């Protein structure tokens, strides 16, 4: 019997505190929960996502990209891509949105403890991975060496470029290697090429390294081949996937995927999947 209780589709009110343009298309939004009890209790894991709701316009699933340590607040990096996201981009600080979640499994950060960490992002993939490496930096003593590879097609599309660039001051002392590279922009003053082409700059030990990746399917295929060839342990290779999600709780069916043998909801069973799940389900990437 469910004659009491809140609906899983109900949202918490969140106030937009700050907007910061990262690129032409992507803006970083800082939100705070209005209800102090929710603000105190709300926790998320790196790699989880929320459904952001604008009354009368709709809901969109967005990865959380801030540190899980800051209670009551969270940041979302949102690309101006559709009806709802363009409306979110028009919000001014002080506006209210509805938020429910967090949903999804997130990266298994506990399993990563004691290992080197390699984060590989392409394009918008830096958004969920920022939460991962901020976790690693916040819990620095739990990790060995850390490498962050951030790639994009064009220089102006590199997400969090300045933030990562600023971190380079302390990076050497902290055993953190930061690589930012573009693939299609001859005018970019920095590095050029895909993630695989810069792997020699990584300071991690393949035998004892956890890998977190987010990017388009083609990047995963290239990186999988590279990593397996170099002897990275496939049990510690994780990627996060994008799908159309309406409910976030494994009911609406849109992100459901599978083959003859294996079935997953990206929202509920993912969005983070390990190497074996990805390679055993054709069509997942």
């Amino acid at each position: 019997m469910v004659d009491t209780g809140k609906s899983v589709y109900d949202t918490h009110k969140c106030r937009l505190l700050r907007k910061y343009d990262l690129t032409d298309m992507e803006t970083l939004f800082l939100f705070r929960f209005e209800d102090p009890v929710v603000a105190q209790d709300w926790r998320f894991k790196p790699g989880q996502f929320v459904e952001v709701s604008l009354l009368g316009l709709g809901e969109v699933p967005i990865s959380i990209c801030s540190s899980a340590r800051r209670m009551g607040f969270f940041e979302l990096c949102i690309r101006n891509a559709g009806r709802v996201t363009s409306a979110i981009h028009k919000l001014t600080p002080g506006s209210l949105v509805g938020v429910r979640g967090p949903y999804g499994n997130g990266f298994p950060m506990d399993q990563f403890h004691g290992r080197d960490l390699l984060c590989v992002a392409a394009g918008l993939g830096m958004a969920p991975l920022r939460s991962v490496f901020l976790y690693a930096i916040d819990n620095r003593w739990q990790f060995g060496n850390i490498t962050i590879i951030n790639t994009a097609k064009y220089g102006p599309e590199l997400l969090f470029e300045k933030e990562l660039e600023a971190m380079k001051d302390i990076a050497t002392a902290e055993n953190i290697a930061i690589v930012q590279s573009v693939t299609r922009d001859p005018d970019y003053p920095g590095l050029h090429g895909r993630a695989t082409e810069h792997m020699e700059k990584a300071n991690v030990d393949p035998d004892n390294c956890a890998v977190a990746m987010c990017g388009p399917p083609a990047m995963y295929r290239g990186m999988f081949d590279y990593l397996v060839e170099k002897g990275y342990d496939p049990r510690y290779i994780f990627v996060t996937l994008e799908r159309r999600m309406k409910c976030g709780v494994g009911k609406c069916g849109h992100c459901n995927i599978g083959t003859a043998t294996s079935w997953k909801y990206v929202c509920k069973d993912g969005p983070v999947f390990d190497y074996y799940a990805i390679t055993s389900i054709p069509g997942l990437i």
Partner: protein
Amino acid sequence: MCPSYVMNQGDITKLIESARDSFDIFGPVKKRTKHVFDKIDDPAQIEMDYDSTILSPRKFFQPPSEVMMTFDLEEKSVDDTLENLRAERPRLLLAVHSCDLNGILLLDKVFGGEYVDHYYNIRRDKTTIVGLNCLEPCEYGFCRSMNTHHVVEGYDLFLTPIDGDRYFVQVGTAKGEHLIHMAENLFTLAETGDVQSFKNALKHKQEALPHEVDLEGINEYLDLSFSHPVWDEIAEDCVNCGACAMVCPTCYCYDVVDELDISLTSADRTRKWDACLFQDFALVAGGHNFRETPAARLKYRFYHKMRGFANEYGIIGCTGCGRCTAACPSDISIKEVLKRLSTIWEVPVSGVK
């Protein structure tokens, strides 16, 4: 064990009369050449001897379109509409066949679990279901092949026609017992002879319902044919209309849309039935479509029924009701597809999708 009862088949109208003060009553009624589950205002409308219905009883628990939330844009307030649902009159749903009861049991799993869907479950709690045993095969159904021709739960009362003019009545829940108390004079306790008639009816059913598809080895043959070009052939006729998903008792996918009122002061969030056959079902921002081709979408639906449900909930998602076959404008029969796949044992040379 709850006692069983017997009642006269003709007394179903009296049962409706007795229950109408407490329930909104729904059951199979004739609509032109077919039957539908509809509200019964006049007890004489009910047709207990029906073959199948156009839509499954899923529509009572997950309506084709339902407002989940209403927004007051000036007050910035949200109403999740659950109070309205809780205030609705209880419903009595009559003459639900075994295949559909099994379908409801599957939907219970989908809308329950870790995240309980209140909209579904409140409706479910407020509904009393009277099941009805099918003793004769229907035109498109193949329930016996899918092992859904009998039920042990999912009903509040369950009727089995016996002796030509009576029902053997099994009580499944307290809700069922309550219904019996509403019209006590219609029911008498079943005696040994009635139990014998009940067993005779089940024996007759066992002989009458055909066993057409063998599920033995289904996992192997589904696995082997996943990448087989046969799917392109099967999908050749599919027009991706989604009719199969709309009539299916276990298809649950939905889309959520916000609709702004013309006054711009209020809005609704509505969920509507969706179908994985539709082109934009797996489309993501940026334009990438994870199931671009019609063949990929048809195959997805089929594998989700036959394997996805089993993987997630432990049972196959097809109840063998045959509605998809009846509804398909291209005469694609899920039964025939299964039969065809079960005969493919060669590994395709290429064309892996």
